[in-house]
C-alpha cells in the first residue's frame, strides 16, 4: 500500500490494526470464559437490569412505563441488531466516502505532478515543490518525515 505512505501521517501499518482487532476478539472470548468459570451457567443479564433488580428488591417501583415495549426478548434483540446494522451502514458509507476522497486527492496530486514533470521548462520554479508532494515546506524535512 504505497499510497498509505503519501498521506499526512506516515500511514499506520495494516497488520497492527488487524492484530488489534484480533486482540479485541481474544479479550471478548477471555472475559466470557472467565465469567463462565467463576459462575457456571451464568446468563449474562444486563448490568442495568441487575441494578433494576436491586432497586426492586429495595421496594422501588417505576412510576412510568415505556411507551413502546418490544413483545419478547427475540424482538428486543432484533431491534438492537437493527440499531447496530443502521450504525454499521452509516459508518460503512462514511468510511467509503472518505476513502474515495483520498483516491481523488491522490489522483489529482499524481496528475498535477505528472503535468509539471512533463513540462519542466515552462514552470521550472514550481517543479521541485511538486515533486515533494504533500509537504510544500523545506524538502529535507519532508523526506525525513516520510522516511
Amino acid at each position, binding site marked *: 500500500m504505497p499510497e498509505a505512505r503519501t498521506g499526512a501521517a506516515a500511514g499506520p501499518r495494516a497488520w497492527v490494526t488487524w492484530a488489534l482487532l484480533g486482540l479485541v476478539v481474544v479479550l471478548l472470548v477471555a472475559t466470557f470464559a472467565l465469567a463462565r468459570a467463576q459462575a457456571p451457567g451464568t446468563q*449474562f443479564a444486563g448490568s442495568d437490569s441487575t441494578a433494576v433488580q436491586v432497586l426492586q428488591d429495595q421496594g422501588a417501583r417505576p412510576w412510568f412505563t415505556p411507551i413502546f415495549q418490544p413483545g419478547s426478548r427475540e424482538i428486543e434483540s432484533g431491534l438492537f441488531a437493527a440499531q447496530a446494522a443502521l450504525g454499521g451502514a452509516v459508518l460503512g458509507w462514511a468510511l467509503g466516502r472518505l476513502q474515495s476522497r483520498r483516491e481523488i486527492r491522490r489522483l489529482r496530486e499524481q496528475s498535477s505532478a505528472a503535468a509539471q514533470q512533463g513540462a519542466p521548462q515552462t514552470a521550472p520554479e514550481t517543479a521541485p515543490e511538486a515533486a515533494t508532494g504533500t509537504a510544500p515546506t523545506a524538502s529535507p524535512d519532508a523526506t525525513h518525515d516520510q522516511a
Partner: protein
Amino acid sequence: MGIRHGRATVSQSQELVRVITTIGTRHPGKDSAVHIAEGFLPVPHAVGWAVAAAPFVVHGVRATVRQVREHPEDRVLLAAAGAFTFILSALKMPSVTGSSSHPTGTGAGAILFRPPVMAFLSTVVLLFQALLLAHGGLTTLGANVFSMGIAGPWVGYGAYAALRRLRAPLEVQVFFAMALADLATYLVTSFQLALAYPDPSVGAAFAKFATIFALTQVPLAVIEGLVGVVLFRVLRSIAGPELERLGILARPAERAATEDGVHA
C-alpha cells in the same frame, strides 16, 4: 414487578449472582433498560437531571449545526462519529462479572468534534433507544444524557487533551479517551442511582451500584478503547487531511518544526 426472594440471609454477593442467573428466566423482557430504566428515578431527580442536561444539549445542537455550516465536508466524519456510538451502544457484551453491558463509543466523537457535539449525538441515540427499544426511558432521558452525553465525553476529552499535552502517541490518547469516557458514564449512572436511592447512605449506595455497573464495565472499556484505536488508525490512513484540519494530527509543516525542535 417486584421479586420476592425466600432466602433473606444470603450474602449480598451470593444474592447478586442468584439475581443475575435467574433474572433472564423468571422475568423475560424485563431487563430492558441500559443506563437508568424508565420510571425508576423519582420525579424531582428526573426533572433535575433533565434541567441540568438541557443547556448542554442545546449548546451541542448549536455546535453541531455550526460545524456542519462552516465545514460541510465534515458531515461525513460527523456521520461516522454518530454511527460509531450507534453501533457500540447497541452491542451488549458479556463481562467477567457474569452480566453484560454495552460500550458507549462517545469518546471518538468527543476527540473529533469536541464534547458538545456528543451531547447532541448521544441524545439522538438515547431517544432512539427509549422510544423504539424500551431501553433507558423518557423520564430518565435527562439523567442518561448527562452520564453518556456529557460526563463521558468530557472525561474522555480531558484524558485526550492531557495525554496530548504529554505528547503521548495518538493511539494512547484515543485508548484512554475511549475507555475513560465509557467508565465515567457508568460511574455517573451509579452516582445518579445512589442519589435517588441512598440506602443506607449515598456513599454506600454508590459503592453498591458502582460494583454492579463499573466492574462489569472495566473489561468492556478496555475493549472499547482498542476498538477506538482501530477506528482512528483507519481514519488516519484514509482521512489524514481531515484529521489535520480538526487539529488531531499535526500538519506536515508543524510536524517538521517539532522534529527540528527535538533534534536541535
